[in-house]
């Protein structure tokens, strides 16, 4: 025991044992990476390394790791190495190891030994109980290394002896033929390697820290850092993957230069309503200096490059419509709840309702839109752009409300008091003091919310979506389509009450139809990746702008 001398939490020197334990952690990390590479076929299991098959090499490494970790525990227990372990590895480690060994024992008993219903349960229970006893009862150094090392040794031996060799496979017998599944070594071996190297790495990190408080600290930090790292890696891989797959179709045929782009005619006619007399008209045509066919084209047989222009237009209109509906409603409600209403039952109920609305599944909003909105804009129930806008507006509303409210609550009361002391009325105070101070928070909330709804698909399927591949001519031209009539409702807009498409909906249609032959889309998968990339760029730019705005204002505005 180290307690008598200088067993501090902080150590300055690195001992030989610590170096070995550190090297073990490094080896475990290397094995984990190897396992990951093998899972994605970057390393073949049947290739030979120095005359041995990769499986055998991996098995040998696992065996060595396991033995090393067990020897750390034994060395510490026999006081060959100076450590300061606790009296037990703890209940949580015990339960986790019980679970792991229960599964291992159960699988071996039922599948390898072929024991029946009661038999394998008994074996699994016995193995689990032994694992629990080994973890929880002895001192921490043994309790946290022995079950971990044993797992690596067991897996390593299975691979070394060829029990799980290249020709091995396992098909659970109780799965019906039509729903059968087979486990091949190319899946199982990498999983075994990755899992056991994680467990062994944790145990080795504990040993590196000399067990006890410092050992636990290191072991836990290893896993938590690994977790954070893998989240970021997954994010990066996802975005990079979509980018690499989508950049070719998106960039096809892009041209710059004066006059290469499509022509846009800006025209304005002043017409007297109801009698159709044009007073005067202006019209001017400009050609864009950019030609970006994937974004500026629709889909048509004669196109060189088929594109998603109508979907882009649809998404823009959806966002505009949702913002026009949700922002006034959300900000207005937030003003009432924060400034006028007394805190009590009413505000509490509204708060709970808003949060509940925020977590309501998007498909439920879609059903609601289909039942509440779709039948009401045209004589016959028809999916329409307007229904899609309002449905997405309803989805945006709770986020706008919540963030605006938070922003308004964060405005210090001194501001309000100072304004009130000047004899200014309440509404004046809200308008000229509270709202400007809360504006950054509101704007950030709206931008992030827009990012979320711009990628929303499910409600559009039920309320707005129409057309698989849409030609450029069918892009919604909302502005030019307002018509005044003499009978109620006086203003109509056929474009708003018509089904149209949007980027996420277009991507769904690509998956659903699986072929673009009718519209002249040759490679439907490439078209899909292109659509996914455009959608991702649109949505992520909203997020990037939102997050950047927030960082900017946060560094600028510190109320306290």
């Amino acid at each position: 025991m180290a307690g008598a001398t200088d067993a501090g939490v902080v150590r300055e020197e690195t001992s030989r044992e610590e170096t070995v334990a550190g090297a073990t952690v490094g080896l475990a990390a290397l094995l984990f990476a190897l396992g990951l590479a093998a899972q994605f076929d970057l390393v073949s299991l049947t290739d030979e390394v120095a005359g041995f098959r990769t499986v055998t090499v991996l098995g040998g490494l696992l065996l060595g790791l396991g033995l090393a970790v067990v020897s750390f525990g034994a060395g510490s227990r026999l006081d060959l190495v100076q450590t300061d372990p606790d009296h037990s590895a703890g209940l949580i480690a015990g339960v986790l190891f019980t679970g792991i060994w229960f599964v291992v024992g159960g699988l071996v008993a039922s599948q390898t030994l072929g024991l029946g219903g009661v038999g394998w349960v008994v074996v699994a229970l016995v193995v689990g109980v032994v694992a629990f006893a080994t973890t929880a009862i002895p001192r921490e150094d043994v309790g946290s290394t022995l079950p971990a090392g044993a797992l690596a040794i067991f897996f390593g031996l299975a691979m070394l002896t060829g029990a799980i060799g290249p020709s091995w496979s396992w098909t659970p017998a109780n799965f019906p033929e039509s729903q059968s599944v087979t486990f091949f070594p190319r899946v199982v071996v990498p999983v075994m390697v990755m899992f056991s190297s994680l467990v062994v790495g944790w145990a080795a990190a504990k040993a590196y820290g000399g067990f006890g408080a410092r050992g636990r600290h290191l072991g836990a930090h290893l896993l938590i850092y690994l977790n954070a790292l893998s989240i970021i890696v997954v994010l990066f891989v996802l975005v990079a993957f979509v980018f690499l797959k989508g950049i070719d179709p998106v960039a096809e045929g892009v041209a710059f230069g004066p006059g290469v782009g499509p022509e846009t005619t800006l025209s304005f006619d002043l017409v007297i309503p109801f009698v159709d007399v044009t007073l005067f008209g202006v019209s001017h045509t400009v050609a864009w200096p950019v030609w970006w066919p994937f974004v500026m084209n629709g889909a048509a047989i004669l196109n060189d490059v088929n594109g998603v222009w109508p979907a882009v237009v649809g998404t823009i209109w959806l966002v505009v419509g949702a913002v026009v509906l949700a922002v006034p409603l959300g900000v207005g409600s937030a003003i009432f709840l924060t400034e006028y209403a007394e805190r009590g039952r009413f505000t509490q109920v509204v708060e709970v309702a808003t949060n509940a609305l925020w977590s309501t599944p998007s498909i439920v909003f879609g059903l609601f839109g289909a039942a509440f909105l779709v039948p009401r804009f045209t004589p016959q129930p028809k999916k329409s752009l307007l229904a899609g806008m309002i449905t997405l507006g309803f989805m945006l509303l709770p986020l706008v409300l919540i963030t605006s409210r938070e922003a308004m609550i964060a405005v210090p009361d001194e501001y309000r008091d100072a304004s009130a002391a000047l004899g200014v009325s309440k509404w004046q105070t809200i308008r000229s003091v509270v709202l400007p101070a809360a504006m950054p928070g509101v704007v950030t909330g709206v931008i992030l919310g827009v990012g979320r709804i711009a990628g929303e698909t499910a409600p559009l399927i039920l309320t707005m979506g129409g057309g698989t591949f849409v030609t450029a001519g069918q892009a919604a031209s909302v502005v030019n389509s307002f018509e005044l009539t003499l009978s109620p409702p006086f203003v109509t807009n056929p474009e708003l009450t018509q089904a149209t498409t949007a980027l996420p909906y277009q991507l769904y249609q690509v998956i659903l139809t699986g072929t673009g032959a009718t519209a002249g889309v040759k490679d439907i998968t490439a078209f899909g990746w292109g659509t996914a990339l455009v959608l991702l760029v649109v949505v992520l730019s909203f997020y990037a702008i939102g997050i950047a705005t927030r960082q900017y204002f946060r560094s600028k505005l510190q109320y306290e």
Partner: protein
Amino acid sequence: MVNKRTASQWRTAGRRRIAAARDFVEETDPDALVVGAIGTVALFGAFVGFLLTSSYTSIAFVVFLASVGYGWWRHQELTARGVTLAMTVASSLILVLILAFIVLEAWPVIRYETSELLGIPVPGLGAFTSTSWDPRSNPNSFSMLPMIHGTLLVTAIATLVAGPLGVAAALFLSEIAPPVVREFVKPGVEILAGIPSIVYGFIGFVIIGPWVSDRFAIVGQGTYLFVGIVVGLMALPTVVSVAEDAINSVPEPMKSGSLAMGTTDWQTMTTITIPAAFSGVSAAVLLGVGRAIGETMAATVMLRNEPKIGEPLYNVFYGFETLTSVVANKYGSAVGLQESALYLAGIILFVSVLLLSVGSQLIEAHMHRKLGGAE
């Protein structure tokens, strides 16, 4: 702390309300009162007109706008208050409307699936006692069990992914990460939430699906296991941000006190921070579960879209249908009772997520009361 009021207390409270209202009427300009009344009636009329698909809806709405405009010109203070109140009511009404409309649409199938329990007919029970979804044969049957089974499996797997990883990431962000690393990881987690579900679905459909079928020699394409993993990844940011808030709300003096005793920061986390924030962290996991239940597009495009229950029950390698995917898939082609059955799936989703949301809010409120002491 149940606040029980006696009848007489209610009566006094009511009387006070009426008195306050009378004072308000007496003090306010009659002109403002009239305009306010007109506006209120017009708004209500517009709502009713909208429900009845009347073409006069727009007239009522224009009257409302006109009254607001007049009020704004003459009595800005009162109008602002009234309009923001109307907005609050409208916002809160949406939740009620959602429930009302999906129940209304689901009613035919609830009546159709009536079956007897102890001799008493219970509407809708049939959808939970049989296991077959068959809109073609006669008689039809619309069991929700296959979809509930799918949703349960997907949600369980997603929770196993999002729960531990999310809580660990939240700990990392709020307690462990150096400020520079934090500045990168936190926006990263948020952006993960921003990737549209259909993009996850597309990757799942084009890449993961065929890969899994090949690896595991599966017949066809679509597994609950990998849908669950993808959905877990999508629920992860929710868990991280809510759990991080909970961990941050543990008062700093509690942690400092522990650290001053000479503990490592991991010891402080396990003995002080996590126990104190435990209810908040579990609320975060509950919200994550809610997100996983409601996730639609990834499930829709990655599953097989035939409502049936896998064999054996825990066979996660074959994915058929969830409550969300059945709606996204069948809406449009379904008519009559089948369409109504989709609304029944919507009710199940709505109610279960509502309960989770309210539950997690109650837990959070409880935690704030406990940690904040008397506010």
